[in-house]
């Protein structure tokens, strides 16, 4: 027993060591952790409460007092940009987790069982995938209403296809392997074979898809909030901060109201993509082409990468 745990620890250690040796993973992890810390300690770093209003000193450009200026209600932009990460990252991570969960369960089931179930789910995924994502999200929002949880649900419902396809593909090849036949010959139940035996072998593409989905959903949140249909405006998220730029006067004169939140999104998304690249290299060199497959807006590429 003791030996067993030692062994496990050592595989984990090897994984972490490889990850830390991978330059893009290190850069990505550094960016992400700094931004998460920034979000947690927004008040301490900026010295201002993100919700504190001082309407008299609204629309001030960046200065020593307010490094990123203030918004129309005189709230400190630095504090808002930093703490805006909290909800944006939360939405990205949770939505990505749920989307992956849906994609994995459907992919595993369809991939293992094949047949009618598989072709039905496949058709649905094709449809969802080709539908311009934003329109799908908008339709869901118009049905469900706004709110953080609804945004997360909507993203999960419209973003599971990449994972689904990856997992399904893996299952298609893995289910032919002898150990699965052996499991069946031993009389293992289907859930046990699917989830305990095959699934662990598909973990690396799932993990990579998870990180990339985070980036995709953070951008999607920004787009949705920019249109005024995302999270309630009283919650500062990067997307909500960008809403200011709907006003042409703001685009023209108060650039700090939209440039800083947009930069935060770009930097964080880059960080996540770096981690994704790193994970891909460390976990499995086979999945080099994943990044092209996972671009949310044109996830349809994934369809082509699939082996027949």
């Amino acid at each position, binding site marked *: 027993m003791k030996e067993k745990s030692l062994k496990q620890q050592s595989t984990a250690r090897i994984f972490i060591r490889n990850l830390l040796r991978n330059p893009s993973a290190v850069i990505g992890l550094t960016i992400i952790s700094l931004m998460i810390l920034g979000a947690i300690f927004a008040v301490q770093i900026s010295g201002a409460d993100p919700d504190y209003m001082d*309407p*008299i000193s609204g629309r001030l450009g960046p200065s020593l007092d307010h490094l990123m200026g203030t918004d*129309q209600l005189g709230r400190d932009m630095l504090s808002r940009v930093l703490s805006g990460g909290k909800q944006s990252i939360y939405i990205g991570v949770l939505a990505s987790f749920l989307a992956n969960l849906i994609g994995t369960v459907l992919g595993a089931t369809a991939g293992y069982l094949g047949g009618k179930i598989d072709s039905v789910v496949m058709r649905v995924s094709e449809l969802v995938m080709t539908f311009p994502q934003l329109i799908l999200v908008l339709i869901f929002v118009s049905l469900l209403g706004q*709110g953080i949880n609804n945004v997360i649900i909507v993203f999960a419902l419209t973003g599971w296809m990449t994972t689904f396809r990856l997992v399904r593909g893996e299952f298609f090849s893995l289910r032919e392997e002898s150990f699965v036949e052996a499991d069946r010959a031993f009389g293992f139940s289907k859930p046990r074979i699917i989830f305990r035996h095959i699934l662990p072998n598909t973990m690396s593409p799932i993990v990579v898809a998870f990180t990339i989905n985070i980036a995709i959903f953070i951008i999607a949140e920004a787009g949705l909030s920019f249109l005024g249909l995302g999270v*309630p405006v*009283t919650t500062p998220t990067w997307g909500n901060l960008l809403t200011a730029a709907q006003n042409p*006067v*703001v685009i023209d004169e108060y650039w700090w109201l939209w440039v800083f939140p947009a930069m935060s999104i770009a930097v964080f998304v880059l960080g996540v993509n770096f981690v994704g690249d790193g994970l891909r290299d460390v976990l499995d060199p086979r999945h080099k082409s994943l990044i092209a497959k996972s671009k949310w807006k044109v996830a349809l590429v994934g369809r082509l990468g699939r082996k027949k």
Partner: protein
Amino acid sequence: MRKFTKSLGALGLAAALAVSVLAVPSQAATNNSITVAEVTAGGGGVQTIFSPWINSGSISHHAMFRALFKADANLTSVKPDLASGYKYSKDGKTLTVTLKSGIKWSDGKDLTVDDVVWSMNSLLRVAKSNAIYVNAFKQIVGSEAVNGTNTTTMSGITTKGNDITISLKAPVNTLIPVLAQFMILPKHVLANEDILKLDTNNYWKNPVVLGPYKVGTFSQGNFITLVPNDKYEGSKPIIKEINIIVSSNLVADAKSGKLDYFTTNDPDTIRAMSSVSTFKSAPLDVLFYRYLVINPTGPFSNVKAREALKYAIDWNKLVPAIYGQQGKVINSGVASGMSFHDSSIPKYKYDKAKAAALLKEANFDFSKTIRLRTYNQSQPAVMLILTAVAQQLTEIGMKVEFLPWTGDATTELWTNRNYELALKGLSAFNVGEWFAEYSNPATFEKLLGAQPKYAALNSQLIQSTTLRDTGKILTDLQKLEQQDLYKLPMHFLKQVVFISKNISGTPTKWGNPLYVYQNNIASWSAN
């Protein structure tokens, strides 16, 4: 870089040529033309001429449509327009209007009393129209019989030669100003159309009109060009072309000379326009109310809790910060400074402690989430001020959720009622409209239940013929309003008219741009 981007564009366009199906002839800008922005873009609708029976006041209405009378900039006193004059009977229940003769429609047909009678009767047969006409015309004898399915004429309107006689059930003190807003439409064009859906009729793409201008080019969704109407009996308009466009960026278009006239109440645009030296501005006090409807069935069922809201929000700081000079904080429908204001109404200075005390007195349930809502497509300023309201309510311990409604605001407000506080705007013709809302069975009464007290006072107000009576009734209404506090008045919003300094002949005093008045459009000229 510039060259590069241009060549990119050219490439793309070459491709787009293949699909673009627009084939409107090119137009050279003439010296004597002006460009007017009517609606800012972003909506889903098609740029069109809106039925003046729904809302009048845009430049296209000023230029093309005419009523029996023409109001002055205050909208109260009138001059004859299509009518040569009018006469009231002694009891104020019979109005006789005499129509001028020799006026022609833009298609050459004569204007007749039939057009006037048909228009008045038809208003009650369309699905959608402005309440000021409906409220006034419902006082005409026989109006009950007229609607989309039934009789098409009111027995109370009769004609004899060029005289039109209108019999009223009770005196209506606003009838003449309302008739000055009510645009006469051509019976000979519209009589056989589907009157119920008049507002979407093809007529509006090229209307047969009476005004100095008519439609020249109608490029749907893009622009409309008005040209002089040669059948107009008055002096010929000076400007040969009025372009009505949709502007995505008023300030930039004004700066670059693409725009000569527009009106707005958006504080950011107004602030930015202060640096545009080629324009002059005219800020107008209009009766544009912004207020919060308080749902009295939830946590705010106790009037003390509603009173607490008046102290909990620092309007005097928020309104100037967001609207600058545009916003004027109000504490009642008849705001302080207006005639007949009831001076016993408190000024409601921001006082957190007092708000907290009142909430405690009301046993306020702080565990309930206060749903603060606004109608969709809100302007940025609206979102900002309500965000600030939400923040200040949070500061006195409430849990607030602020969202714009996705969907139809009127359904949400009066049918679904899933809110505690909801923003509403009211562009009123007169103060009476503010109070008339309380007893409207289609709106507030759905939320509040029957309001006989308001109903009684409101009908007295319409019938009152003397200033003294009006003042007394308004005082009573304000007192009644103070007992209930169903509305939380926020501010008035001024409308600003911006006009290029190149244009002369414009009125010395501008009126409410949401209504029609004597703005001399035919004598405007451009340098």
